[in-house]
């Protein structure tokens, strides 16, 4: 292990992942205050990435018939109908967060999950063997195994498109620029300005989510502007990358291993050898 900064805290992830002179870190800023819930992002993503259709289930959860981010839905538009006391209808296009400290990536035992030079987190479909470890590791519930395929799938932030200077499919399609793509630094500045604007326009409940490099995942490469608590949209309120505790875990395992050794030694040490006894 390479010191704790590789596991938590602010960090530029691309150099940390072996790219000495990377391009700017790219990401998404999803501004839910202008999301119209059209789901163009879901479809554009599927068209570009040739993601299978999910099937026909009327979920009865407002206009959300996708349900969640899954192996077959890399963008998911959430719909929340609220009375507080005025009625309002929140919509939010969720996506992989491309964490600075990505648990999925760190726990992946094959290197299928890797950090790209753009600082994004991608599953390499030619490598993944479907061990499934990344799935419970993700604090956002993003990664998922595809039935009948066995591998894990999620948003690639259109690594292939970004690599040739194109905008990811979802962001390109988004009619209202709710999904914005660009260098993360710029997006963060833009988001700060947007928040200030909304606060001065009388929308005090507007808040950013996942933008802070000091948060539990070192900041998200895909962050959001929300109009309510994160959990209302199905997001964890204060996610922490599990590997932040990994050094302590290994230490506890080391101690446990010593305990095991000690127990075995004690078990044998105390009793006389059967050979000698007989």
């Amino acid at each position, binding site marked *: *292990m390479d010191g704790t900064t590789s596991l938590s805290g602010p960090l530029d992830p691309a150099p940390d*992942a*072996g790219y000495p002179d990377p391009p700017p870190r790219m990401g998404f800023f999803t501004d839910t205050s202008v999301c119209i819930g059209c*789901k163009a992002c879901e*479809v554009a993503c599927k*068209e570009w990435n040739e993601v299978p259709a999910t099937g026909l289930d009327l979920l009865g959860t407002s206009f959300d018939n996708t349900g969640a981010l899954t192996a077959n839905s890399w963008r998911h538009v959430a719909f929340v109908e609220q009375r507080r006391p005025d009625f309002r209808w929140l919509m939010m296009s969720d996506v992989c967060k491309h964490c600075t400290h990505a648990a999925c*990536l760190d726990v992946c035992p094959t290197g*299928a999950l890797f950090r790209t*030079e753009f600082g994004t987190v991608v599953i390499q479909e030619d490598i993944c063997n479907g061990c499934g470890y990344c799935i419970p590791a993700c604090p956002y519930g993003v990664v998922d195994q595809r039935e009948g395929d066995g591998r894990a799938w999620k948003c690639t932030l259109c690594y292939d498109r970004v690599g040739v200077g194109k905008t990811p499919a979802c962001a*390109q399609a988004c009619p209202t620029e709710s999904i914005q793509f660009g260098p993360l630094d710029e997006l963060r500045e833009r988001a700060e300005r947007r928040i200030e604007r909304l606060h001065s326009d009388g929308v005090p409940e507007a808040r950013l989510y996942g933008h802070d490099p000091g948060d539990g995942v070192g900041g998200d490469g895909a962050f959001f502007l929300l109009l309510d608590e994160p959990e209302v949209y199905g997001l964890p309120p204060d996610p922490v990358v599990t590997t932040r505790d990994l050094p302590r875990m290994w230490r506890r395992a080391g101690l446990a291993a010593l305990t095991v050794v000690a127990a075995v030694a004690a078990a044998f040490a105390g009793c006389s050898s059967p050979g000698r006894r007989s």
Partner: protein
Amino acid sequence: MGVRTWIASWPVYRQLTGTDPLGRGAAAKSAGSSRLTARTETADSVARSVCPYCAVGCGQRVYVKDGQVSQIEGDPDSPISRGRLCPKGAASKNLVTSELRQQKVRYRRPYGTEWEELDLATAMDMIADRVVAARDATWEDVDAQGRPLHRTLGVASLGGATLDNEENYLIKKLFTALGALQIENQARI
């Protein structure tokens, strides 16, 4: 592939010798990822098109590879849509490449209980025959007062709001010459 290159391509070796000891990025990158490029880059041709759904008229770029549509996405040059598409527009490739699309003429004879196959040329000839016959059978030359009518009410048509202007022009021109009046489209609906 020599043993040396084989070992050099082993990510563990790259971890040990390169800039990425934790195997997070550069060392773990696969051959597939190294080859990856957007398929829009390798398209044989790009057609500038317009979305077929609603009347906003969003620009589309249609990428073609080996005679097949490989991608349809918004045209950033369009001052109308600025490269954006709605879910329907974004699903255009799915529409035009759908395996559910009918590609053969189907024919159902009167009182038939199933579809039958029919050659396109035969179908065209049969339809032309029926147009001529229906027109003759229902032709009206003049009204009761002898004023010209020059028409048939025996042939009708509905459609055209998703068709091109050029197509509508020929439809109207031909039907008008045939004396068919009841030529309508979605604009009435």
